[in-house]
C-alpha cells in the first residue's frame, strides 16, 4: 500500500499569536514550528497500516522553509518526502498540489489531519477527494484496511458513523485515532539521509487572499462574585446577560 500523508507546518500550540506589517502578516519571530498535531496522528496511523500490510509512507508538504519539520516527520518513520516549493496560499491551492502529486505517484491512500491548527479550515481532505474523484473518510477515529476495502468510524454531530469504501481513498485523522509516535534517536539519525524531493508547484488556483489579521477584543476584566452568595451568578446571567 502506498500512503501519502499531508503535513502542515504550524506554530506550536503554546505560541502567543502576533502580527507584523500593519497586521497583514503572521509574526514568525521566535515561533517554534511543529508538525500539525492531527497530521502526526495520520502519519502514525499510516505507519501502523504499512507495518501491518506492507507498503511505504511518503509525506508531502506545501511550503518554503519547512525542511526541518519535514525531517521530523521522516524521523518519526516516513519512507521519503515531497516538498512542493510554494507558499501554502489557501486550501484550494494546497489541495490542487497534493492531488496532482497523489495522482502522479500512484498512491492508494491520501491521509491528512482533520484540520490544521493555524487556519483551522479542515477543507483539504475533501478538496483532494473531489479533485481525484475518490471516496472521503472525514474526521475518523478508527480506520482498518482489509484487502481493497477500508472500514472507518467518523465523527458526526452528536455521535459516530461506521462507513466503508474501496481504495484508493482520502482520509482525515481525528483525535483518538492512535497515540502519536515520538521519534527515537535512530529515527532522527536516519532522517537526515532519507530522500526529500523538492518539486515546483503547478500554477493556478489563486482564489483567495488572506490580507488582514486581528486579535479578539480584550475582555473587560472579570467580575468576581462572592462564593458565599454564588446564586447571584445565575441572576446576573439571567437578568444582565440574558443568556439563560
Amino acid at each position, binding site marked *: 500500500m502506498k500512503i501519502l500523508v499531508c503535513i502542515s507546518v504550524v*506554530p506550536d*500550540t*503554546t505560541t502567543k*499569536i502576533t502580527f507584523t506589517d500593519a497586521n497583514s502578516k503572521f509574526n514568525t519571530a521566535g515561533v517554534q514550528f511543529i508538525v500539525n*498535531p492531527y497530521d502526526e496522528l495520520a502519519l502514525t496511523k499510516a505507519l501502523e497500516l504499512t507495518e501491518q500490510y506492507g507498503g511505504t509512507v511518503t509525506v508531502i508538504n506545501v511550503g518554503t522553509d519547512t525542511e526541518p519539520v519535514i525531517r521530523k516527520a521522516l524521523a518519526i518513520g516516513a519512507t521519503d518526502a515531497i516538498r512542493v516549493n510554494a507558499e501554502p496560499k*489557501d*486550501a*484550494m491551492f494546497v*489541495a490542487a498540489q497534493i492531488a496532482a502529486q497523489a495522482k502522479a505517484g500512484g498512491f492508494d491512500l491520501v491521509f491528512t489531519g482533520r484540520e490544521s*491548527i*493555524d*487556519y*483551522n479550515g*479542515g*477543507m*483539504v481532505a*475533501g*478538496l483532494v*477527494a*473531489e479533485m481525484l474523484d*475518490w*471516496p*472521503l473518510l*472525514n474526521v475518523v477515529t478508527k480506520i482498518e484496511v482489509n484487502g481493497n476495502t477500508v472500514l472507518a468510524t467518523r465523527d*458526526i*454531530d*452528536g*455521535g*459516530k*458513523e*461506521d*462507513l*466503508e*469504501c474501496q481504495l484508493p481513498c482520502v482520509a482525515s485523522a481525528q*483525535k*483518538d485515532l492512535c497515540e502519536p509516535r515520538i521519534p527515537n534517536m535512530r529515527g532522527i539519525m536516519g532522517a537526515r539521509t532519507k530522500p526529500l524531493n523538492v518539486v515546483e508547484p503547478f500554477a493556478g488556483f489563486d*482564489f*483567495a*487572499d*488572506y*490580507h488582514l*489579521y*486581528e*486579535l*479578539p477584543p480584550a*475582555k473587560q476584566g*472579570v*467580575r*468576581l*462574585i462572592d*462564593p458565599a452568595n*454564588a*446564586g447571584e*451568578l445565575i*441572576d*446576573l*446571567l439571567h437578568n444582565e*446577560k440574558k*443568556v*439563560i
Partner: protein
Amino acid sequence: MSVIVFAEHNENIFKKSSFEAISYGKDLADKLNTNCVAVAIGCSDTNALSNLGKYGASKVLNATGNTLKVFEAAAFAKAFCEVAQSQSGNVVIISNTYNGKSLAPRVAARMNASIVSGIVAMADTTSGFSVKKSCFSNKAFTYVQMKEANKVLALVPNSYPAKESGSSVTPENVSVAVSDADIKTISKSISTVKGKVPLTEAEVVVSGGRGMKGPENWGMIEELAEWLGAATACSKPVADMDWRPHSEHVGQTGITIKPNLYMAIGISGAIQHLAGVGSSKVICVINKDPEAPFFKAADYGIVGDAFEVLPQLIERAKQLKA
C-alpha cells in the same frame, strides 16, 4: 446569480445551524441584490421544508432520489451542485457541521470556487468580497478576499443569528441525476445520543475539569446543565482519564465550541483549553485558585470550592426555571 444555502436535516428535522445559514444567506442576498434559495436533500416533510422560508429563503428546493436517503458527501455534492446550477447559484453557504465539512470542499472543487471555512461574520461586499474567519485555533481572526465568481462560505455554527424575518414558502421537489454509482462510501451504522443537544449547537455549556476530582462528582455538573438546558463538556485530562466520554472534550485537540454561555468548573484555563472555548460569548469560571489563568478570559468568576458553589447554583437555577 443567487445565494444557495445548504439546509441540513436529520430525519426531517432541520438543524438550528441551517436556520442560521439561511438567515445569513438572506442578508447576504439583500446586499448582492439577489435572492436566497434553500436547498435540502432527501427531506420528506413538506411542513419542515416550507418553514425554511421563515428564516429568509425565497425559494425552497428539495433534491430527491433513492440514493439520497443517508448523507454521503460525494453524492450529496453532486446533487447539491446540480440544483445550485439550475438556479445560477454562485454563492453557496454551508454550515460547518460535521457533514457540512465534508460537503463544502466537494462542492467548492466541483464549482472551481473560492472557499473559506470558519466564517464568523457577514461578508463585506463594499470592495470585492471579504469574509472574516477565525484562525490560530480561535486566538485570532483573519480577513480573506474571495476572488473567484463562484464562492463557498463555510459558516461556524452559533456565529450568526437565525432570524424569523420571512414567511413560509411552498417547497418544490427536484429530481436529480444521481445514481448508486455516485455513492463512494457506504454507511454501515450510525449511533447518536438521542435527545441531547450536540455540543457544537448548544447555547449553554457546563464544563468540568480535573478540579471535579472524579467521575462520581459529575452528578452536580449534569444537574446544573439540566436546569439550564445546557450540554456538558470537559477538559482533556478528564476525557483522557475516562471520567467523561471523549465526545465531551473541548479545546485545541477536542471540539471547538462557541456557545452563548460557557461555565468552566475546576478547569485551570490552559491555552490549549481556551483555544476551543475562548470565543464563547459569556464565560463564567469557578475555581478555588484565584491565580487560575482562566479568570483572565472570564466575564464572571467565583473564587471558591466547586463543591460548595455548585449546590448554590443548582438551587438558584431551579428557582429560576421552576
